[in-house]
């Protein structure tokens, strides 16, 4: 009788465990449908903003700390020109960090960019730190609903045994700001 009770107890515990598990699975399936994202294009992309992810066209890794992302050597985004940009132009502003750990290995890094196929003046960064790469963008390049911005660094950290990623810069935000 005692043995039977123990078996019943053990069986009940297992049954309860799998019932809990099954309940959780049912709950999950209710969440399965993807969330509907707004179709509007952003002029400013904050790296931790889920709405911005679709506009990070190439060369970005997963967000970290819900605030920044490592880039590859080449990376590109698509931005909506801000209101009035087609008449007055805009300013491209890229907020990023050149980490000390990277700078100590690579030395000065040159960042170049092009927007809608036009090269913008590059800039060389000779110390680690937080920077804003700012360039004026003429109105003639901002007549479309969305424009592509390509970035490229002249150096990057190659993959290592512990991190298989090619690492360019630590991006915080990229924006086209109204003049």
């Amino acid at each position, binding site marked *: 009788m005692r043995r039977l009770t123990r078996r019943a107890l*053990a069986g009940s515990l297992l049954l309860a465990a799998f019932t809990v598990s099954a309940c959780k699975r049912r709950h999950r399936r209710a969440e399965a449908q993807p969330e509907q994202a707004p*179709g509007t*294009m952003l002029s400013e992309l904050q790296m931790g903003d889920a709405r911005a*992810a*679709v506009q990070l*066209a190439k060369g970005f890794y997963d967000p970290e700390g819900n605030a920044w992302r490592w880039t590859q050597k080449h990376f590109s985004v*698509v931005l909506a020109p801000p209101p009035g940009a087609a008449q007055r132009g805009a300013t491209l502003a890229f907020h990023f960090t050149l980490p000390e750990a990277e700078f100590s290995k690579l030395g000065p890094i040159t960042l170049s960019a092009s927007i809608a196929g036009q090269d913008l003046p590059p800039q060389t960064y000779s110390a680690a730190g937080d920077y804003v790469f700012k360039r004026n963008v003429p109105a003639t390049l901002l007549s479309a609903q969305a424009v592509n911005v390509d970035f490229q660094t002249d150096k990057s950290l190659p993959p290592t*045994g*512990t991190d*298989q990623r090619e690492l360019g810069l630590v991006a915080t935000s990229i924006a086209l700001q109204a003049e």
Partner: protein
Amino acid sequence: MQSRQEERGTSAGAEWRWGLAAVIVFALWLDWPGIKTWFSADDFAWLGLRLHVHDFDTLVWALFHPFAQGTVRVLSERVYFLTLSSIFGFNAIPFHVVTFLTQAAALALLAVCMRRMTGSTAAAFAAPVFWTCSAMTAQAVSWSSAYNEVLCGALLLAAFYFLLRHIESNRGSDLVGLWICYLLGFGTLEHVVVFPFLAAGWALCRARGYLLRTLPLFVPAAVFAGLHFALVPATTDPLYQLHVDASMFPTFRIYWLMATGAFRAPDDWFAPPHPAGLVLSLSLSISLAAFAAFRAWKKDFRGLFFLGWFVFMVGPVLPLRDHVQDYYLTLPVIGLAMLGGWGIGVAIENRRLPYVALAAILAGAFCLYSARDLRIELNWYYTRGRRLESLIEGIAAERKSHPGAIILLNGVSDRLFWSGFGDHPFRLLGLGQIYLAPGTESAINPHPEWGGISDYVIPPAQARAALSAGNARVLTIVSGRLLETTAAYRRVLEAEMDNLSHSIVDAADPASASRFSPEWYPPEQDFRWMPRTASVTLEAPRKPGMDLVITGFCPAVLLAQGPLHLTVSANGTRLGIATVNAPGQTVVLKFPIPPQLAGEGPMKLDLSVDRVYRAPGDKRDLGFIVRRFELRAPS
């Protein structure tokens, strides 16, 4: 009325059973995140096996054809996955239930073996607790594809249990049980060939009269090993190449440090050990070695046997220098758990406070530290599986609401991709036409040795056409969330394609490999050699007035006989002939593209050089080095 002795026996038996139950409940609690974990990686290949079984012949093929680096693990992989997937389909829970029940049996067998080997109840309970706490068991208890470790462990321990019984009783039935479990082990994992060494080792240590009876065990092991190397073709996967050389010693060091708690996370195995982990590892290493050596000095060689269990069990994976895996330690750490458990038993029996205190501190530190690591790993596997499950469920839901539309996935990270995409989980749900959003594949290491990523790459023009026709849906993954972003992504892709400066093809970019004709030599670092002639396909410029820019390099040896001439044509129209005369320097060659070539669709570039070079010992005809093709507005 029962006699007092019978009462004590009944009471001891009850305590023993309750103790075993407590160990198993503890394991259930500790491994719980692993039991909830969804499928990943190789699981999908095994789950897909049943799709190939249609009749008896295909069943035989599925059961016995070498897969996965040429292995044939009939029971632990083929039967396990075929049976459970046929009954339960895509539900991971039954797989984990079977795994846990097998592991529970293994824990019970370890306890009864320890009781027979040491005569100590404390040792019998401590060993399975140590094994359960080992972080090295994380994959084995949470990843269905590692069930081979669990089942092999259970069968090895069962065979060993019968060996111990046979030595005690000399009954033939125990010998039969030993042989059955041992032979079944050949259907689980190649490690079973080590069992004869363990059996002979124990006989040497404790029952030399039985040593001869263990020798026949070597016959199946030798036959299996011979057949394995003779019949199974060597794998071409570089990760699984065998290195039987001095590199096995550093590999052993890594495995030892991992087993004793020096390393905290799978990604850090080759990084410097965590300081606290290293202290624990050194303390355990010194204590266990000193304990085994002291007992050996006293002519008790059980400690050496337990250490030998670790060495023999880890031996088969030491030649896999480039594929160090924590789950390979699932079986070896049983030896260390045995040694630690015996140490606890001896300390308690001796009743000397310093020894008891030392044993308690080391055991407590190991259990707390390693169990914490185990939970971290199990939660990591659980989260990874959960993300993959959510993604696949989300894709299935999207396909259900938009049947026929192709699905473009944006934001798939390297880790997410290789946690399952490579083994095509979507086909198991009948989901086809799933691709990475054009351009995003650059964030994924292509790993051609694992099958590559080409099945998920779609040309931008095809994706754009599908989006324009309303035949594509885009799902963006952000921090585990799945967003439907078709409208926004359509604008992104249009902007990308309108921006002709984005038309860049890097010669060494694996994502662009399909653009290069077969004549090209394989990528090296960031370039490719072309022979005398070769071609590459780009997207045609959508606007007139663009330049084709080729970035290349010409080693001095190529120019020893004078300048090199590179002729370039696009869709049959000659763009020009460039003269290369800068030895050892990067060269940038610009070719204006005639306006009539502008438009949508592919543009095939034919390249030829007027001279090739053959380096000594190199059979290749070397023409020119190309790093990049680019369409750019004239500057």
